[in-house]
């Protein structure tokens, strides 16, 4: 199943510009590159004394997090603030929905408070699509992670990291290691790497952590870490959640570290200048050795900085796409 044209209408406006950011699936190489280029400009903003631009001044960005997350939430807040937007954050995990209010009602209430954009993180795959379809079409929806399906801003910030440190994607070999089955980050990364032209994408995991039909992403599958890491340029380590040990998928964290943990020794199998990446938060001694996480090849902390720039880019582009669509609709009205 290749990226479908069917997803195009929902995320894009009539001019092919971003008006929601729901998933990497359905976006062209040009559009992904545009996101990266725009993010580069915002990185420059982050290096100034005044780290703000007035682009979204007067706009309200509402972070609606149905799943707990300090990291993603904070970076989205920061991104919106640096664009001079007003930011509200709702941790819905503890509030009204547990009182029986439906997801749709929660959002409609927020909509009534005249939010211009929602950043949504939800435990169900397809939640962001559902919201984009049912909430007012003028409100941009940014997917902050939906179930196992997608985490497109993480995917893009990983791509920005790779581009900034490796120059491009054409000659790269990238390995994604760990719990692919449950990972929305892995899915977004595989799609983005494929679209951006990476010729050698590898996934490395035990069978219990590989989804059926993984081949459809155009990746090579390895169950042996040593084999999979040979001569790669980039290693993306995925977080292993403790629940996995209880589901019968793995015997213990120790055995996982023994077979799939990124140690200094194993890192040496990759290219000497290979990048070590991780979406965070890292589990030291489970996926990755401390020395590697803190070592010279690790760009884990840089990823955080790039994350703010990517999110600034996506927030601006989606807001911009909404404005362009409104303009187009108005022109069409006038022509009648």
């Amino acid at each position, binding site marked *: 199943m290749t990226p479908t044209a069917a997803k195009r209408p929902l995320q894009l406006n009539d001019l092919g510009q971003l008006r929601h950011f729901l998933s990497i699936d359905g976006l062209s190489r040009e559009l992904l590159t545009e996101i990266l280029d725009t993010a580069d400009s915002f990185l420059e903003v982050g290096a100034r004394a005044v780290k703000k631009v007035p682009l979204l001044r007067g706009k309200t960005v509402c972070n609606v997090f149905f799943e707990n997350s300090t990291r993603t939430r904070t970076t989205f807040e920061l991104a919106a603030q640096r664009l001079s937007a007003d930011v509200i954050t709702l941790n819905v995990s503890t509030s009204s929905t547990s009182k029986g209010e439906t997801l*749709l009602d929660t959002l409609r209430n927020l909509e009534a408070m005249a939010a211009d954009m929602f950043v949504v993180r939800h435990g169900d795959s397809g939640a962001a699509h559902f919201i984009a379809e049912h909430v007012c079409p003028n409100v941009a929806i940014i997917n902050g992670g939906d179930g196992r399906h997608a985490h497109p801003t993480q995917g893009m910030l990983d791509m920005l990291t790779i581009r900034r440190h490796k120059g491009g994607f054409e000659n790269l070999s990238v390995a994604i290691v760990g719990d692919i089955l449950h990972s929305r980050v892995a899915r977004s990364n595989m799609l983005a790497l494929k679209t951006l032209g990476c010729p050698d994408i590898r996934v490395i995991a035990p069978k219990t952590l590989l989804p059926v039909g993984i081949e459809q992403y155009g990746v090579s599958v390895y169950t042996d870490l040593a084999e999979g890491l040979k001569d790669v340029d980039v290693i993306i380590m995925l977080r292993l959640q403790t629940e996995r040990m209880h589901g019968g998928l793995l015997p213990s964290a120790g055995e996982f570290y023994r077979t799939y943990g990124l140690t200094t020794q194993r890192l040496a199998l990759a290219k000497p200048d290979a990048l070590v990446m991780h979406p965070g938060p890292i589990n030291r001694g489970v996926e990755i050795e401390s020395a590697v996480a803190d070592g010279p090849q690790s760009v884990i902390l840089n990823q955080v900085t790039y994350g703010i720039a990517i999110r600034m880019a996506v927030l601006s582009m989606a807001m911009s796409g909404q404005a362009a669509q409104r303009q187009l609709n108005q022109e069409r009205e006038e022509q009648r």
Partner: protein
Amino acid sequence: MRTHIIGARVIDPASGLDQITDLFLEGGKIAAFGQAPSGFVPERSIDANGLIASPGLVDLAVALREPGYSRKGSIASETLAAAAGGVTSLCCPPLTKPVLDTSAVAELILDRAREAGHCKVFPIGALSKNLEGEQLAELVALRDAGCVAFGNGLQSFSNNRTLCRALEYAATFNLTVIFHSQDRDLAAGGIAHEGPTASFLGLAGIPESAETVALARDLLLVEQAGVRAHFSQLSTARGAQMIAEAQARGLPVTADVALYQLILTDEALSEFSSLYHVQPPLRTHADRDGLRAAVKSGVIKAIASHHQPHEADAKLAPFAATEPGISSVELLLPLAMTLVQDGLLDLPTLLARLTAGPAKALRLPAGRLAVGAPADLLLFDPQGSTLAGERWLSKGANCPFIGHCLPGAVRYTLVDGRISFQG
């Protein structure tokens, strides 16, 4: 009312009749074919030129949602919807509230159905109390109250021994048990077929083995207990194959498949549309092809709607948070006609799978046209078309076929000689 149906192409799969002829109905029964009985003066004539007259359709799985789920449907609304789909006899599953495990509930359902008068209802009783899979329900009492067969829905029995005992008990009284084979643990947490589509979308999967592992066990226990068994809602090609092998071994098991399972595959899920959230899930092209072949060859002798209406809220949420089920009984005839249109089945075979086949599987007094048999008839226009959703009688609008133009149109549905629906 004495009725004369003029010039229909009468197809009765049970007897092999396929002929343009007249029908004469009197006293709620079929009085004669071809020639009027002596002294017959019709009170009503129906010009059926260009129409097909078949036995009224027999749908083995229509959830009426009453008692207990009034937001989703009622006996009155859903039997009317069924009549619009050409159905004259239907079976309703035991998943009501309270569960259909007491004769009181069976009597309530039958009373309401009689009051509404749109369709003959043959309830399926619970095999275990409250469908919990622990204690046997009072099968004989339920039989005497009108239940025609017994099942446990998708709920598993607590262990194989309890299941085996239940089957032996049912066998004692020559009762039919309906299986929805799905291994609880292999299916746990799953909402879509475990395959590339579910992986891509990040939806928890139900592997094919959830059906086949349970099916293997169920078939062996059926053989051991000697119970009459009907396997309902098959979703895998492999499962159909296993049924074929069992039948070849001489095991007199029957099977049905949901009509939508013959049409849709898991690719329909690509936009996360909850309209395609069903249990058991939509599976692959290969599964659909295997099921179609089994329907064609007669391994699966019954096609059922597996009608499950829902209120709008039940489907208005992210996929995993929605309730499974498609509301489709009122499209049973035209939707089934797409199988003829696609060249899968010829019309008489399709009608057999919708009338004689299901009736025989559960030994229902329905599904055939014969002198003296109840005048349960469907008159439809094979050249007409139905715009699904133009008129909608079911309380549940959760139907992905709404808006589609389907081949064939129901013109009259008659139950005991009375018009229950006119299109």
